[in-house]
Each structure stands twice: as C-alpha cells, then as structure tokens.
C-alpha cells in the first residue's frame, strides 16, 4: 500500500515539476507548485499512517503544508495583480523583455 501511495505521489509531483517548469504564465506556474505540495501532503500522510504509528506531528506537518499553500496562493495572486497593474504582463517572458 505504501509503495502504491508513494508512486502516485511521485506521479503527481512529476506533473507538478513539469507544469512549474514549462508554463509561461505566473498563475499556471503556481498551479504546478500547488500540485507538488499536493504530492507532499500525500507523502506525509502516507508515512503518518503507515510508518510513524500515528504521530501527531505528521498531521501538524500537513496543516503546515496547507498553510504554506494558502500563503503561496495569496502572495502569488497579489504579486500577479501588482505585476499586471504595472506592466500589463501576465507571462514571464514579458518581464524578462522588460528587464533588458
């Protein structure tokens, strides 16, 4: 069971890596990051359930990951808004172009 869960988590994580690297728009990159965190949640709960005898720290770690997701999303959206406001850009290339 643990093997199966870890393979699934690895697959979700792989998709997240692909998304975060390949996407051009900020929000889509954030989606890749969220997918990676999703995999992390699954891994943590898997170990909590199967290997640590239900150590509550595992649960706490999940909550912390959730908080990280919320913070990442809030700051991410705020940044997207601020960048769009000042540069009218929603994809990363446009920012690079501007730097030159």
């Amino acid at each position, binding site marked *: 069971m643990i093997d199966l869960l870890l393979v699934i988590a690895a697959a979700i994580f792989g998709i997240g890596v692909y998304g975060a690297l390949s996407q051009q728009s900020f929000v889509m990159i954030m989606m890749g990051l969220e997918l990676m965190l999703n995999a992390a949640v699954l891994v943590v709960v898997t170990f909590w359930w199967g290997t640590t005898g239900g150590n509550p720290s595992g649960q706490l770690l999940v909550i912390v990951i959730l908080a990280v997701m919320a913070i990442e999303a809030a700051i991410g959206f705020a940044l997207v*808004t601020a960048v*769009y*406001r000042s540069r*009218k850009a929603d994809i990363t290339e446009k920012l690079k172009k501007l730097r030159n």
Partner: protein
Amino acid sequence: MELKERLAHLAKTGDVPVFAVVGSGHRSPVRRLRLSDGINLVASPRHAAVLLVAGTLTEAATETVSRVHDQMAGPRVTVGWNHPEPSIVPLAENVVGGVPDVTAAIRQQFANVLTGTIPGEPPLLPNVDPVEWRGVGPYGHGGAGMTGGNPYGRPLPLRAPARDTLELDQLPITIGPWFAGFPPGLALRVLLQGDVVQGLEVDSTRFVSDGPGGVFERALREPTLIRDLEMDRARHHLEWMADALLICGVDRLALRADRLASTIEAGDVQRVDRLIASVRRSLLRPMTMRGVGVLPPDVDLTGLGPVARAAGVAEDARAAEDGYDDLGFTPVTHTAGDAWARFSQRAQETTQAIDLAGRAGNRLAFGSGAVEAPDGLHRAEGSRPADRFVAMLEVVLNGEEWGDLVTTIQSFDIDMESVSAPKDVP
C-alpha cells in the same frame, strides 16, 4: 407518446410562463396581468412558452421581438394583445379586449401548443451565422492567434483602462429593449468591465409607439377633475412601486401593490399606509436602495417631478393651481436624492393623492398647457421628462455596479412611450 401526453395534460393546467413585449398603452394592463390566476410573467424568454406582444410597436422592434421569440425554448406560441394589423411578428391569436380575455387566450394557446393541437412556432430569424467562421482559421474555429479572429462567430472583447488601473477586458453589450429590469422599449449599450459600468449610450431607436395619452394628457388641454388626476397618479405610483419591489426581489409585496393599484378608491389611505409599513419591514431601504442612484449636483432637476422633489427641490405645478390650493396642498419633499428617497417620495405622494382625491369633490385643475404628471411636468409642447432622464443616464450611471444601475433606472420612472423622436434626443 404516452408520457408526453400525460405531462402535457398536467402542465397545461399549471402556470403559463409568459414573456411580455410591452408596447404603447399597455404597461399598466400587462402589470394587471400579473394578478391573473395562472399567468407568470418571466424575465427570460428561455423560461417562457408564450410570447405576449401587447400594444403598438414600431417597425424597428421587429428584429428584437423576433430574436426574443426565437430564444424561447419552445414549444412556443405568440399571442397579440390589442396589437394593430399588420402585426410585426406572426401571431397565433390577436386578442382585442381586457385582462380576462387575454388571460383566457393565453391559457388556451398554451394548452394547444403543449398538447400538440397547434405546432410550436418555427424560428423567425434566418439561420445564418453572425459572421462566416466555420472552417476559417488554423483550427477551423474562426479564430486567429491568441485573441484574434471571430472564434465561433464572435470576436473576443478588448482591453480598456479602469479606475483601479487594472487594464482588463471591457465587454460592450446592448441590453434591451425587452429586458424586464428596464422600462419597456429602453435599450442601453453598456460598456461593462466586470460588473461595473464604464460607459453607456441609450439606443435612440424607438421601439414603442407614442402612448395613447390618459387623463394627464387631457389636462393639458382642458380643466380636469382633480379627483381623476389624483386617482390616476396614485395608480401610476402604486404600479411603479410594484415594479420597484419586483426588481428588488420582494415579489409578495409587489403583488400587493399591484392589487392595490387595481382596487384602490379615493380616500382609502390606510391600505396604502399598511403597504408602505410592510415595505419598510422588508428592509428595502438599508439592503437595496440607500445611497443608490444619487444625482450629481450639477444636474438640472426642474420639472422632473418626484425625482426632483426627492432631491429637495420643492417644485410642483399643483401648488400654483387654485383647486389644489383649496385642498391645502403642499408638496412633499425628501432630501437624500437616492433611490430610496424616490421610493419614499412616491409612496407619500400616493397617500397624498388618495387623500386629495377623497376630498376634491368637483374641483377642477390645469388645462393651460402644463400639468404635473406622475413622472414630472408635462407641457403641451417641448420634451417630456423621459427625454431628460434618458439624457442624464450616462452621467448618473457611470461607474455603477450592474444591480445599482437597474435599481437607478427603475427609480426614474422613464416612460419610453413619451420620448421624442430620435432626432430630438439631445
């Protein structure tokens, strides 16, 4: 099919969902239709089975009425009501008569079309795409690049600046002339960014013909019984209040106001007061109307009747009439000038009118070319208040949220039957 017949048998005795296209002289009759047993006036043609074409419409209305007709989900049927020949759209039946007649006709045609006695009407507009898009472009969907072309027949909206400096898409859209939240015949081209209005333009096409003119029209030419004038005013205001309540989602009180409008008698102030007390309990003021639709200070309010008086302009042509003077008439005013002030203003003028009508006896008033009508000062020549309201919409509504826009337009009481011909609109 057995099941279909059973369903039709059940459905034909139920409420008839009617989408009403209201032409001249029929705003009040269509409102009374709301009181008819088993008639349900719906706001979207997608929910309707019967299209009611009431009163006289102009030639220009043909396309819009046809479009609404086609948007009905079907099995659909069109019923005319005092609609002059030749009709602008094909009618299954044209009723000449009052509310009971048309109710019966609508029920009958509804039953006919549900049970298959008559076939559902075919669409009226030609089956052609708005632009040629099939097979055009790299995927055959009519688009080009990221946002170009006409994907599936229409372009994508363009960006426009906004007051919070986020330059996002602006959707230009024409709403009306048969949008239930607006006075019948009013079509607005609105620039929407999100749900906020960034600009608007009134379509100067006339969709409804000139109104037949009631007691106030007569009072322009000859002295008229104050009793008649004031009862008509009370009825007009009550119907207006019913519309306002309907738009604000207080259906129960809207029905009461409608019922009151059709049964009210001179001097019967208590029933109106009870209605107004119920309206207060419905929290209409704090929830929907307070602070909505305030006019900018530089707008000229003279002659705008209740709208002006709700903003503190104590101006009323009745005050100069001897007949009214005898009755001790003084104009009611409010100061806030928002949608609630207008509602409250009209509510109090209704009570006042019923009171005046009860005491008026045979007194006469007006007849000299100017009369204080429910929507403002009417003159024998020159533009009507509706023209002025239409002209001020853009100034008042720019930057409003959509719901506030609808509330504000309703609060003006614009009578599209009395607007001038297109060329006269300022």
